[in-house]
């Protein structure tokens, strides 16, 4: 178990900068998710932590000691790859035992069985990886990553090859196991749901830079940047250039963010025409034409009441508006208010 710190970490490839000035401190036993679109540098960061890539500059610290130059095999880091990367020529048990072949371990067999029990694959130990389902392979990969009691557990998109139901149960499962062991864990994912449900803190990255670090609620309710606002939330937030005829807001506001569920139907409000209705199961997503422009709006009902071309009136709480300046930074403690002219 270790406390991990990145200081001004940077990685340049021949043609591009993959990771640019990333600094973060991860507490002992914490579960951090690195979230971002593909190509944002999250996997590069992960592989630098593992020791597969060498950073161009900056420091990687484990428990306060610089480990930049320590080889991958000596860092005592467990990795679960997206492809699971099980060794096809070995049985499940041999796969789990593989890391112990390089360490002095007296109780390797006992530990392997303990790990198999933890991830619930005790009846599969004799099989080959090719005879396992995706979820079972995932569990084997997890057991193999954990058997050497790693300082740090790295998960690289571990759930993206699983089907939706399995993903849901594995999410809880991985969370349970990491809690039980108290291991410091870093999860890399492009799936916001995965990040927000599993992690204590989420670090959102874009183009090699950190956009924001915080809890799931921080990122959702108080996104620091336009990118975070647009990336987090499904269906996505409404980002509109404010029309000052119908809105009163600070002068430097350049973009107005309004979550689809912040809008609600009311007696008094701006007029809206329904353009389309998409039932999504528990709720329905509608696109409506308003004085602010076309907005996404969520109606919290399984049985939609409105149909295209219906007229309704919409309003929102001023506190739910999020304002951004011309650079895409959030303007703290500032909100927008609808003017009377909008009601016409």
């Amino acid at each position, binding site marked *: 178990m270790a406390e991990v710190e990145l200081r001004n970490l940077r990685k340049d490839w021949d043609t591009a900068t993959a990771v640019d000035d990333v600094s973060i401190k991860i507490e002992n036993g914490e579960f951090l998710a690195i979230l971002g679109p593909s190509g944002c540098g999250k996997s590069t960061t992960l592989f630098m932590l*593992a020791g597969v890539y060498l950073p161009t500059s900056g420091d990687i610290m484990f428990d306060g000691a610089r480990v930049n130059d320590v080889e991958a095999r000596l860092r005592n880091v467990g990795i679960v790859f997206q*492809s699971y990367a099980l060794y096809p020529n070995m049985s499940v048990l041999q796969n789990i035992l593989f890391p112990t072949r390089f360490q002095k371990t007296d109780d390797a067999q006992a530990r392997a069985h303990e790990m198999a029990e933890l991830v619930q694959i005790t009846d599969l130990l004799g099989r080959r990886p090719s005879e396992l389902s995706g979820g079972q392979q995932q569990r084997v990969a997890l057991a193999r990553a954990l058997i*050497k009691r790693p300082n740090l557990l790295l998960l690289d998109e571990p759930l993206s090859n699983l089907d939706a139901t399995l993903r849901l149960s594995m999410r809880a499962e991985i969370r349970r196991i990491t809690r039980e062991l108290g291991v410091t864990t870093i999860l890399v994912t492009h799936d916001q749901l995965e990040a927000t449900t599993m992690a204590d803190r989420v670090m959102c990255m874009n183009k090699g830079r950190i956009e924001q670090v915080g809890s799931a609620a921080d990122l959702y309710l108080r996104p620091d940047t336009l990118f975070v606002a647009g990336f987090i939330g499904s269906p996505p937030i409404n980002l509109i250039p404010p029309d000052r005829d119908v809105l009163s807001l600070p002068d430097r506001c350049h973009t107005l963010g309004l979550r689809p569920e912040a809008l609600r139907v009311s007696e008094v409000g701006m007029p809206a025409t329904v353009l389309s209705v998409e039932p999504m199961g528990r709720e329905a997503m509608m696109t409506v034409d308003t004085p602010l422009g076309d907005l996404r709006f969520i109606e919290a009902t399984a049985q939609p009441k409105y149909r295209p071309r219906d007229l309704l009136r919409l309003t929102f709480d001023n506190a739910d508006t999020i304002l951004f300046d011309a650079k895409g930074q959030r303007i703290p403690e500032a909100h927008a208010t609808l003017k009377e002219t909008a009601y016409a």
Partner: protein
Amino acid sequence: MAQIDWDQLAAQSRRHRLIKNSCLILFLTLVSVPVILPFFWVVVISFSARTGGVESAILWRACAVLVPAVLAYGVAHLTLPRIAHRLLAGAGILGLTALGLWLSVGAELHLNNYRFLINANLIEDIRGAGTVGGQFPWVWTAFGNSLLVALCSTVMKVTVATLAGYYISRFQFRGRNGFLQGLLIIEVFHPWMLTIPIFLVIYWVGLLNTLAGPILVLTAIGLPFFIFIMKGFFDAVPWDIEMSAMADGATRRQAFHMVVLPQVRPGLIAVGVLGFITGWEEYVFVTALRTGNSYWVMSTYLYYVAEDVMGVDYGLVAAVSVFYMLPSLVLYLACQRYLTQMKLGGIKG
């Protein structure tokens, strides 16, 4: 909507399938005849020819049994849908064929042509000791030399091609693309074009008239192709697995041995078999790199038997041919499923 007569459609489909399969089997049988017949002929001659003459009548009598047998199996294959029945019919036809062959040509068969296997002084016995003066070796000497050439060059080819293929597949280095293209360009030129320069090089380094000469030359000539094949196999092994092994505590070399190498085993076998067969059947360079009869291998032995000594004893020539063919054939049959997995790696990779 009109009533569809499913039974009629099913009958039609069955008929189409039967015609298609019959045509296919007939076609495949016909194209395989020119390939199989010479081999069959050589085998028949080696067991039947008596001093000098070739009894073609034996071949025709054997064919008179075999052709109906093949046709009968074709019909059985088409008409019997169950595999167990087919196997049973096949075994029955095989038994009948063996019986037919025994009855038609059995009396003509003998092993006299294979006497070269146990007679160390074959030529002296035929021609008299004075003529060739003990230069001509026992077949097992040539066999041993051929084995040595084939095995040594195979081991070197497999070792170098594996390490080079791995490096090219995994590492970026200056001139990598040029190197890969160079490998391909070498394949454009036939190695025989290089016979004279190779002879000179071997002469200057003093390996003329030693088996080391052909071993090294064969290794060098075979390598570009084998490196390409091994690169293709390594390209197919995912990076993740290697990274995972290294994160699990293995050094790069351990990861290579324990995780990567087992996955290119089909490639190692394919390259090994091909390398062995090319070494086993080599004639041009083993002849070019010796002056006089300093060493004998199977190919030069066969040539000598066929051309220099017994221009007319086809029985003996055929028997030596069969003996020469056997190791390649066995090896090929045992490993052919690995050979079909070969693929060439691209330049980019």
